[in-house]
């Protein structure tokens, strides 16, 4: 049976060729405008809270940031020294922390969203239309996401989202390899509420859509971890730019003496605040409308 969700599949070479025109963010096609979620693309996008956004104006104190080897500090009750901010770590890596509290979002909504949105370009674009250009899964990734036997929370484990987005340094193709929290390195003995409600994360490699011989393909670890909060659901983001996983452990993948450019760290930090401000506002509404499954 073919559906809009399976018809979206492109072969690798065709998807790759498509990213340049997609990066220009053309208007949705007539077919896309017929999709039940198309209206979200045309909504006004809420600006972030100015005070929150201003916290990304300057780097935080690197001595208060944590490296990925301390990711399990995120399972401790209370707050860490830096919950909103960014900086270069002493080893040159880029560090980003962000916190959002969503009054109307639940962990189930989060799990649904991260499985539902990679199935079509427009699903990804409605998240943050100013900077989200497109998304693709491999045929095997799509098969797993659409498999009703795979629990919602596990659908993305081992799946790669091939996204095209602008994190304030130009349009990039980013391959995000989603992982289980165990494979990411979290202490599963504490993997329960109130420490954690759900998680979406993994590692990525990003390179400019307009790739040249001088382009750098840059690695990063991405962590979105959620826990209960008095006002709803608390979302804590961490990025460690310049790291990849090696034999299951985070490893710095920068040449000696090289730092992740400040513009890239700050750009992603600001993008994160903007895209998740929008996300927190529209996720409860779209989930209520379409959150019954993967197909629509």
């Amino acid at each position: 049976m073919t559906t809009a969700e399976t018809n979206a599949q492109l072969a690798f070479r065709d998807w790759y060729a498509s990213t340049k025109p997609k990066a220009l963010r053309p208007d949705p096609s007539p077919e896309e405008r017929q999709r039940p979620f198309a209206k979200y693309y045309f909504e006004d996008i809420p600006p972030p809270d100015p005070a929150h956004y201003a916290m990304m104006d300057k780097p935080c104190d690197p001595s208060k940031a944590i490296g990925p080897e301390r990711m399990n500090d995120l399972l401790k009750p209370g707050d860490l020294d830096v919950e909103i901010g960014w900086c270069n770590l002493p080893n040159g890596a880029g560090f980003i922390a962000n916190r959002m509290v969503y009054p109307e979002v639940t962990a189930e909504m989060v799990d649904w969203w991260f499985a539902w949105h990679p199935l079509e370009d427009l699903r990804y674009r409605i998240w943050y239309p100013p900077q989200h250009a497109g998304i693709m899964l491999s045929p095997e990734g799509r098969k797993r996401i659409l498999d009703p036997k795979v629990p919602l929370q596990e659908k993305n484990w081992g799946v790669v989202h091939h996204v095209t987005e602008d994190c304030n340094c130009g349009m990039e193709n980013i391959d995000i390899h989603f992982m289980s929290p165990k494979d990411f390195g979290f202490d599963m003995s504490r993997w329960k509420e109130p420490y954690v409600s759900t998680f979406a994360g993994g590692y990525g490699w990003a390179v400019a859509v307009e790739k040249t011989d001088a382009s750098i393909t840059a690695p990063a670890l991405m962590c979105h971890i959620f826990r209960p909060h008095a006002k709803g659901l608390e979302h804590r983001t961490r990025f460690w730019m310049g790291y990849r996983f090696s034999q299951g452990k985070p490893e710095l993948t920068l040449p000696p003496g090289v730092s992740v450019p400040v513009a890239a760290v700050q750009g992603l930090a600001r993008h994160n605040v903007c895209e998740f401000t929008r996300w927190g506002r529209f996720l409860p509404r779209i989930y209520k409308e379409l959150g019954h499954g993967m197909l629509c």
Partner: protein
Amino acid sequence: MPIKLMAASRRRPGLTRAEYFRYLEYYHGTIARQERLKIRSYVQNHVIDGAFGVLEDEYHQQVADRDAVVEIQFDTFPDMIATLEPATPSAASQDGKFFAEERNNIIVMAEEEEVPVPSPLPAFNPGLGIVTGVGALKVLLYVMRADDVYREDYYQYFREAHDHALQQAPYAREQLRRCVMNKRCRANDNDAAARKHFKMVDPPVYDMIVTHWYDTLEQAGAFRQYYEALRRFPKSFANWSKSFYLYTRQVPIIRDTPVS
């Protein structure tokens, strides 16, 4: 081992294979031992024979000539970069031009993934049985990804094809002592400086090199049986016309005895 560099080269014009191997082992290898830098281990794989493309091809679709593949392993990525790009250029980096046609090198920065095999120990003369997963014949299979297949599916399909091939190839199932998938690390994308240095023009990109170990060259037929079964796997994942394999003899330059 966390990360390694695998460099396939062919000899420079004017050298016999014997002269190339002499230089590679006794000169280039000695320089590597003298400099050492941050190298964890270094093995040269000297090519005995090999095949490029498939019988269905009317003509070669690649440089159909490789004389050696050197494998240099490091504990960390920074160690690798510190060795390849030291503050003062190393002698090893200046030495390649004396034996290799550098512009046609294929350089792959790879991470290993061990694939369990059914018979890591030979039935014939296994000795005390405490050494497994070794062999005098090492086969390196460069698998060119089909350009319509995503990397993640390509690795998955290879694993399925490998299992299928071992089912279909009883001689290989019995003789294969060790198998490693060497997956290309995306950091390899950032090798523009190396390509410029060696004047490498649009070198082919291999997302995986699979290594097999067999007891001796007498078991090369086991690999052939496996390879033909691998190619018959129904899911497409490779461009076999641009793939190749090499039968090699290992020459350890820097290597502690591995724990088997």
